[in-house]
């Protein structure tokens, strides 16, 4: 049973005007088998939370801790965190010219699994995983994320999620920029991952629409750098109806249209 424990996490980012604190004491525990939706208005620090956990060098942890099964994640390098079982599906996946998707996936799987997957099984595994996400097999030979549409990038993030099989997955606005069909395909991918084992999911989103496909066990409202309210799925319904006005003092809708 995997557990991710975030305790009193404070994170700053260095800007031209000096260091600026973005996360101001985040406490959250995610157990395997649970899906936590983190919902909040723009600029509340949701993405910072995901990047800080993954270890992006831009963010400085000033205090607090992040433990994965009792191990201090913050002492690990970015790749060590991934190999320990953390996965971040990024809001803006990075293009890596000249590195083919197939080479990248195999290199990553080899690193995470500790040995190179047997070629014959691997080819089949990738093919099926791509087909499940309606990804054209031709993408395997294209450079990582290069020239992909927003939706194609998100599908490939979920493809990696399925192949790397982390213990805890953090999905940073995976729903943003997706049309209805893509949202359904991507959500089904996340649900397959959830059903594949004892895994935990942190689903970061601004809007409630993805929660119609991926049902959360817990919903947390994130505002001004910390969790300000926690509850069950009913909290999402309340946000859908009322928006974030109660938390930030101005109207910002959580529903679309």
């Amino acid at each position: 049973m995997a557990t991710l424990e975030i305790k009193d996490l404070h994170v700053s980012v260095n800007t031209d005007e000096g260091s600026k604190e973005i996360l101001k004491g985040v406490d959250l525990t995610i157990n395997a088998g649970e899906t936590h939706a983190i919902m909040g208005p723009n600029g509340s620090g949701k993405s910072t939370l995901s990047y800080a956990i993954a270890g992006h060098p831009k963010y400085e942890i000033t205090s607090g801790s992040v433990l994965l099964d009792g191990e201090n994640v913050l002492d690990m390098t970015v790749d060590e965190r991934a190999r320990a079982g953390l996965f971040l599906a990024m809001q803006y996946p990075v293009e890596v010219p000249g590195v083919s998707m197939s080479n990248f996936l195999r290199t990553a799987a080899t690193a995470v699994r500790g040995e190179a997957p047997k070629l014959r099984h691997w080819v089949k595994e990738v093919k099926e995983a791509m087909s499940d996400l309606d990804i054209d097999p031709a993408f395997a030979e294209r450079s990582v994320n290069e020239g992909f549409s927003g939706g194609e990038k998100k599908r490939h993030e979920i493809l990696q999620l399925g192949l790397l099989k982390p213990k805890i997955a953090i999905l940073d606005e995976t729903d943003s920029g997706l049309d209805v069909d893509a949202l359904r395909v991507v959500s089904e991918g996340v649900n397959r991952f959830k059903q594949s084992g004892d895994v935990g999911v942190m689903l970061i989103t601004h809007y409630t629409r993805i929660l119609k496909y991926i049902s959360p066990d817990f919903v947390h409202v994130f505002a001004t750098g910390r969790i300000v309210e926690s509850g069950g799925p009913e909290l999402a319904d309340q946000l859908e109806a009322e928006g974030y006005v109660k938390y930030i003092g101005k109207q910002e809708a959580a529903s679309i249209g």
Partner: protein
Amino acid sequence: MAVTTEQQQHGLTAHSHGRAEKTGSAPISSRADHFTSFDVNAFEVPGGREEIWRFTPMKRLANLHNGAEATGKAAVDVKAPEGVVVETVGRDDARLGVAGTPGDRVAAQAWSAFTEATVVTLPGDAKSEPTTITVTGAGEGQVAYGHLHVHAKQFAEAVVVIDHRGSGAYADNVEFVVGDGAHLTVVAIQDWADDAVHVSSHHAKLGRDATFRHTVITLGGNVVRLTPVVTYSGRGGDAELLGLYFADAGQHLEHRTFIDHAESNCRSNVVYKGALQGEDAHTVWIGDVLIRAAAQGTETFELNRNLVLTDGARADSVPNLEIETGEIEGAGHASATGRFDDEQLFYLQARGIPEDQARRLVVRGFFHEILLKIAVPEVRERLEAAIEAELEAVGV
């Protein structure tokens, strides 16, 4: 670290930039007025302030620019398939010098000083297996001059690999005469020992509808300065110049391409990519393209990218595009020099790939489009291994 990029966008009007106006001392000159001569004494001894020498460390040239006498000979070994004719000829052979005229003092010095030349003739109307020419330097402290002439006859289809190795100072002219309708692929590898100084001019002359694929790979040597010049003698010529270079601490690797479009409906494409690492690693790319008034329907593009892997390295990149006619298909250039992209590194590491492996993936990816186009598998494999070794050397 100093990274210099001089870069401009172009319009379709006649213009010149990046050259004389940068120094402020000389009047703005067109590449069309560039002086050429077979006579070494027609060139003044360059001091290093001249436009075409301003990036070159003159003190490290072993006096190739200042009348250094030959003290040895480079060994030229040709492995040619059946049908390809290989000859060693004297200075008086009438075929020599037809592809181009030396455009700087070292090229003229090499022309004046070589004693024998190697002539490789690729049979016309036939497809030949690859020919490999291995040139080994005369040895540390030695000075040598050479001349190589490659002629692909009408409708020939051939690949020539020129492999430079060993020690010493070496200046030479290499000619490529590409006959009408011929298809010549050249891979020139500069894999010299650490002491070597190599100053080389490549002169390619393309016949009507000729195709020329020229790839330069520069990895080893203290100073390497390569000047590939392409001219067209008929319509429909198509030149692609690719370059890959990797400079380590203290190395100076300079490439100066010049495409002279004087005939109509010809094409050219120049893509040079370099990586640099270590203290005082220095690379220079000067890309000159001249589209003369008669060269209507020209299509040309040139691109240079540099990847700076460590502090202390410097990449200079200067594209120059001169257009004397508005009646062209297209013309463009791009140049960029950047540091390692930390976002790419983060993304790969976030998928569990260790940092050193992630760096290698990115550098290999950077060179990928050039490596992909190297038509000779053995050469491609050797280069991939060489790039791996370069990366391992500094623990990148």
